[in-house]
């Protein structure tokens, strides 16, 4: 029974890993690619880790898999946030098909005043001039 569950988890995790790679290769801009890499990649690795814990139910295996899953779930959002913020501030272009692209560009170029909560950007609010 545990072998069946483990095999299904291995297949699911590997499929998610493949989908993450294809998403990074095929999506249009940095932010879409990050969406594929971070979420699908983390889910795929997490499923494979659970599969390893199911197939080899020993203390040492379970402890390491739990550590890996916890660390991935803690660090993947932080890393994605840092890369996304850096790409945004460097003016990485957005591709077509994004609703509200003009609004996004105006925000980035400072024509719309500061983004709420972004006190570090150095953009001054000219809406009252």
């Amino acid at each position, binding site marked *: 029974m545990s072998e069946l569950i483990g095999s299904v988890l291995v297949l699911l995790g590997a499929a998610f890993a493949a989908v993450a790679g294809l998403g990074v290769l095929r999506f249009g801009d940095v932010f879409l690619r990050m969406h594929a890499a971070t979420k699908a*990649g983390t889910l795929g690795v997490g499923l494979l*880790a659970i599969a390893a814990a199911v197939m080899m139910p020993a203390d040492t295996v379970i402890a390491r898999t739990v550590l890996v899953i916890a660390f991935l779930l803690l660090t993947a959002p932080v890393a994605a946030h840092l890369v996304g913020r850096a790409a945004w501030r460097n003016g990485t272009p957005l591709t077509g098909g994004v609703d509200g692209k003009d609004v996004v560009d105006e925000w980035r170029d400072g024509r719309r005043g500061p983004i709420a909560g972004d006190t570090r950007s150095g953009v001054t609010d000219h809406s009252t001039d």
Partner: protein
Amino acid sequence: MLTTVLPIAFVLVGIGLLAAVCRLVIGPSRADRVVALDLVTVLLIAVSFLVTLHSGRIAFLDLALVLALVGFLATVAFARYLETEPEPKGNGPRHRQVIDGENQGRVNIDE
């Protein structure tokens, strides 16, 4: 059951790795490459789990743990580099004055 599933899983993760390496090579921006490198690290963790299941050796789980730790540090370091250094050539930052507004001490390469 697992002996039939594991080769398929290896091929699937290999497809993901190949696609990520392709994105790493073709770019075009540095942020794309950082994202691709992050995904390569994550997929290598997946490969180490598959090797653990294939060989039954627990030592590969330590490899997965260390890769998870080091990959995060590498991504954070690359993100800091992305944020502080402008794009080397071609399409540079579109609003460099906004970036430089908060970094008075940094060298502005346009002046």
